[in-house]
């Protein structure tokens, strides 16, 4: 069972979809990693003990901190989301697409050889590369609880568009087999992704997507999302429920809690008071029968 409220990490890395000024203020606030720990502690003490985070370099420091304090964080859980796309995008500008993949898939002699010689890549080679990249991203979480592992939306949606969907199945199989985890997919194109996951026979998948009253970044349209939530078999996690602050908090949470089949909400906050008020709203409006695993 997944808790109904997950703590996100955008605020820690200066990511704010509303304002660069706000993003910079948050980058300043969380420059000292101790401020990050303090906010995670505040969330923890409010009963929010699952951290859904990208594989950003700084998350490694958080992992080390949690490992170093096993008594304090006995039941702490990570939901890693991979990869942190900007490191690949910047590397691709510098080294080219193939250079970027090589850079982040260490120990991949076979891969380098394949690229160099231009030999053909059968399906099984692609799965090899995918597994190497997953393992490389998962290193920082060694010894920590990671019951759900997500593929980030940039990768999911790029592959979805390309029609190159086999890596979804490879990802799914590998995180189950090697990390005993449930695979999760983040997307901006929920209805389209659900069709593809059905075709790949990935049953009842965990899918995280924008779900907000405005329909902001919900490709396929609000109606198609509502229909998917009503009729499709999948486990929905709602993100961007406030549409980057465009919807008042109470209105936003009340609307999301009215949607059928939403299993959890992921949110970010920079202060204990915001964490507490969001949790208060979710406690007030939650209707799906889930209880917080506090």
């Amino acid at each position, binding site marked *: 069972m997944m808790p109904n409220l997950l703590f996100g990490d955008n605020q820690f890395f200066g990511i704010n*979809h509303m304002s660069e000024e706000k993003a910079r203020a948050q980058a300043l606030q969380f420059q000292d990693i101790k401020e990050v720990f303090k906010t995670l502690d505040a969330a923890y003490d409010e009963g929010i003990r699952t951290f859904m985070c990208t594989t950003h370099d700084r998350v490694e420091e958080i992992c080390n901190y949690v490992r170093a304090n096993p008594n304090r964080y006995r039941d702490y859980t990570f939901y890693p989301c991979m990869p942190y796309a900007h490191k690949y995008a910047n590397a691709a500008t510098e*080294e080219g697409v193939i250079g970027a993949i090589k850079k982040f898939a260490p120990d991949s002699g076979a891969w380098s050889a394949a690229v160099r010689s231009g030999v053909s*890549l059968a399906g099984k080679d692609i799965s090899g590369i995918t597994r190497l990249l997953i393992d490389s991203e998962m290193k920082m979480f060694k010894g920590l609880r990671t019951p759900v592992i997500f593929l980030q939306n940039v990768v999911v949606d*790029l592959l979805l568009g390309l029609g190159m969907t086999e890596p979804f199945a490879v990802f799914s199989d590998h995180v189950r087999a090697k990390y005993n985890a449930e695979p999760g997919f983040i997307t901006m194109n929920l209805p389209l992704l659900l069709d593809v996951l059905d075709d790949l026979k990935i049953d009842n998948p965990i899918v995280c997507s924008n779900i907000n009253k405005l329909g902001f970044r919900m490709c396929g349209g609000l109606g198609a999302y509502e229909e998917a939530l009503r009729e499709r078999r999948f486990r929905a996690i709602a993100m961007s429920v406030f549409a980057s602050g465009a919807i008042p908090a109470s209105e936003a949470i009340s609307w999301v809690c009215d949607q059928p089949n939403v299993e959890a909400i992921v949110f970010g906050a920079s202060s204990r008071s915001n964490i507490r008020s969001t949790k208060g709203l979710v406690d007030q409006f939650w209707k799906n029968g889930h209880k917080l695993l506090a």
Partner: protein
Amino acid sequence: MVRLALVGLGKMGLSHLSIVRAHPEVNLVGVCDPSRFMLELLGKNAGLETFNDLETMIERARPEAIIVATPSRFHGEIVRVALERGIHVFCEKPFCLDWNESADLSELAERKALVNQVGYHYRFVASFQEVKRLLEANAIGDVTHVLAEAYGPVVLRAAGSSWRTQKAEGGGCLYDYAAHPINLLNWYFGMPARVGGTVIKKIFSRDTDDEVYGTVFFEDGPSAQISVNWSDESYRKMSVKLSIWGKAGRIFADRQECKVYLRDGTESVTGYSKGWNVRHTTELTEAVWFYVRGEEYSAQIDYFVKCIASGSHENVNSFAAAAQTDQLMSMMRDDAQAVISAPSASPSVQQRKRVLFGRLEEGRAVTNDAKFAFWR
């Protein structure tokens, strides 16, 4: 359905490929790249028709439209081949490294009545579209000055081996980064009459530029300063921003928001009032059918496809518009090379002053060239 093909499977090519394959009105008939690895990867795993030769692809796949996302150096040649065969073209930016070629191709595309578009996606970012709307409505009165900036963390050390790090291939901060704010200046104010004070420098790159600064002057219009640095780690990703000063107010815009200060309350633009007004991307951005990395990337492709379907040739990002940007970047390169050197130890400052004043007293016109000759 538009029969579409794509040339160049690098970072931009893959992103475009994902978007066009997901487009309900596009039938992707082929991709072309010299990399056997990429072709086999996509051929086997995405079921694409792949080609390592442009002519063969055109002949066999018979595309009506083509997306060109090769290294910039090859744009001109590929675009010409496509246009000559009557194929509509979407080309990545910058358009051509030689702006004369850009102008020729623009003329060719117009003559053949083919849809022509360049991938300056900031023209599809809602906040920058809002700036265009505000300027056309004269919301801040006569514009006196503009600051056009772009910063990001691309080259942070002496490394790199892709074409983007090589000047001859069309890589570098000027063509890759500065092109965007420069193109926005062209969109808002047209072609400037002259440029000055251009600085194009390396920071870490061996072979190309990492920072670009300069001033451009629009006739009977504003001056604009360009400030671009792609070796700035304090930015998480590329950030383009504009500050525009007018007699009746000021506009600030980046990808996230458009902030406008209006000095008076005359309702020249609906919804805006005296003092500060802020519009966020959440309210300005129109939904797209498919999202990979920003609505603007999807929106520009959708626009291209719709222009073909509707037979429209009023393209907001036409070759002609991109040729302006190519020409302006070329002017900046020329300007950057015409640097006035500090004088050597002799003659002394006093002596030089005397010489200069002496020449002025003689009544000789001191043109720029004369000044250069003198200071050298």
